[in-house]
């Protein structure tokens, strides 16, 4: 496929009119038709059908559209980065992260960005899925790294990064500390400690209600770092990402038959003008070897004596 063929295809799929698309592409109509015909030849199927004055995109055209759009978008990013790399221009980057996402995972990527864009200026927002979704929608952030958004719309671009597993953080002298697995019913008397609107905590709460726990007592903290000290202070069992370290002498246990995990994805919005820094971060996140985060086991960092 040639770059100009894809560009013409994308513009024609928007305009659905050869004359208008040729104008938008700044080429003659025969040149546009020829490029589309060549692309059809290579792809082995008809992309558009002309009926009298109307142009329709075919099912085949619709099927290949997302892939060609991705590829074209990636091409724009490559060019943009090559142009702005090591340049002194302003590089704003507004980013939203779920509360459980560990900044230590992101920092090497940000270090790369800092080298690429010496004048980068970042704004990091942490919040609930709802808050993150609203900010992404309103254009307050360019990129979000989070679990499931609270709602999606057709221009949202989503890529999976890794599966985030959670466990229950407990004190060593807790009665549930005797095994690595606890029964759901054993949690009936426990107080749950988690972040507000955390889907994992909510799912566990719902499950406990289903098995007959009348009232689930919970503590909420908006900063996830507050969970280990509170667990240590006997404020219940904490809902905690198992890949994340903590600096207290605590244990992680799991609930028998109840999977506490979710996919962490990177989100951005199609069609918006994104900074080169945002596009680059998106690529660095996607390219990263996420199996390494998962391989690393959740041994607590050494207690400072």
């Amino acid at each position, binding site marked *: 496929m040639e770059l100009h063929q894809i560009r013409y295809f994308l513009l024609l799929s928007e305009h659905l009119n050869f004359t208008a698309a040729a104008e938008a592409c700044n080429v003659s109509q025969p040149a546009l038709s020829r490029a589309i015909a060549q692309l059809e030849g290579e792809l082995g199927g008809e992309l558009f059908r002309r009926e009298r004055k109307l142009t329709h995109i075919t099912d085949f055209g619709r099927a290949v559209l997302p892939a060609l759009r*991705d590829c074209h978008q990636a091409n724009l990013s490559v060019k943009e980065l090559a142009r702005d790399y090591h340049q002194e221009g302003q590089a704003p980057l507004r980013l939203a992260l779920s509360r459980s996402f560990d900044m230590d995972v992101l920092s090497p990527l940000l270090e790369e960005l800092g080298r690429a864009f010496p004048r980068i200026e970042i704004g990091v927002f942490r919040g609930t899925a709802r808050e993150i979704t609203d900010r992404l929608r309103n254009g307050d952030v360019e990129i979000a790294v989070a679990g499931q958004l609270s709602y999606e719309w057709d221009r949202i671009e989503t890529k999976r990064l890794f599966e985030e597993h959670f466990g229950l953080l407990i004190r060593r002298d807790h009665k549930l500390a005797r095994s690595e697995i606890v029964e759901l019913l054993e949690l009936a008397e426990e107080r749950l400690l988690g972040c507000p609107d955390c889907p994992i905590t909510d799912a566990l709460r719902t499950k406990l209600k289903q098995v007959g726990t009348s009232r689930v007592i919970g503590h909420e903290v908006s900063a996830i770092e507050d969970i280990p000290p509170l667990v240590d202070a006997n404020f219940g069992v904490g809902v905690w990402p198992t890949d994340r370290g903590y600096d207290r002498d605590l244990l992680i246990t799991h609930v028998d038959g109840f999977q506490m995990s979710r996919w962490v994805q990177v989100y951005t919005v199609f069609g918006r003008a994104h900074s080169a820094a945002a596009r680059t971060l998106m690529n660095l996140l996607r390219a990263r070897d996420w199996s390494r985060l998962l391989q690393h086991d959740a041994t607590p960092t050494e207690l400072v004596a």
Partner: protein
Amino acid sequence: MNATSLVEELATCTRRCKEMDAPLADRLAELAADVHRIAPDFADIVDRMVHRLQSGGAGSTAPAIGTQLAPFVLPDENGHLRSLPEFMGTGNAVIAFHRGHWCPYCQIEARALARIEPEVHANGGRIVIITPETQAYTRRMKTESGGQFPILSDLDSGYALELNLAIKINDEKRNAMTSAGWDISAFQNNDDWILPIPATFVLDRAGVVRGRFVDPDYRRRMDVEDMLDTLRRAQVPFTPAA
């Protein structure tokens, strides 16, 4: 033959071809012959795809000899951003587009590149491989090749498209690849089924293309002897033929 035994048999053939004491072209041809023998249906699908690409002139508009290669900045297998000018800093460079760690022809070529790498380095040159895969796979490819060269992630083939090298895999080929255990969507972190035409560019210190091998028949690659010859010739600046 079921899919598992096909994959195993192919892996055995690939290992043999990788270590064969023969020119790269012969090793690649040997593997292609093996595929025709053990999976004739698969080979037919490949032939059809290659024929379609060739008749449409795919890859013919990739950068020509004497032109400047477009710049790139892409992450390597360790997540560090690497740029084209950085590789040109010390001398000539070989830029090779590969389909991915799973591709037996790429494995054979990567091993051949690893073998000539000391000689390339001795002459101040660098080898760089570009694939559309994420780091878990570029890292694996590097380890398996035994090379020192960086393997860069060109996600969604954005840079390959810049050089008119991106191709879309059709449903027939996709199904054949998936059955063979090559679900590239997992390797590329997308559902696009786009691959680069394997291509090799030998650049001089000014970033000008001095040697070029682009063939939509992915079973054929630039011969390493040609590569080394071109690198030697590229020591002197390019003068367009009159």
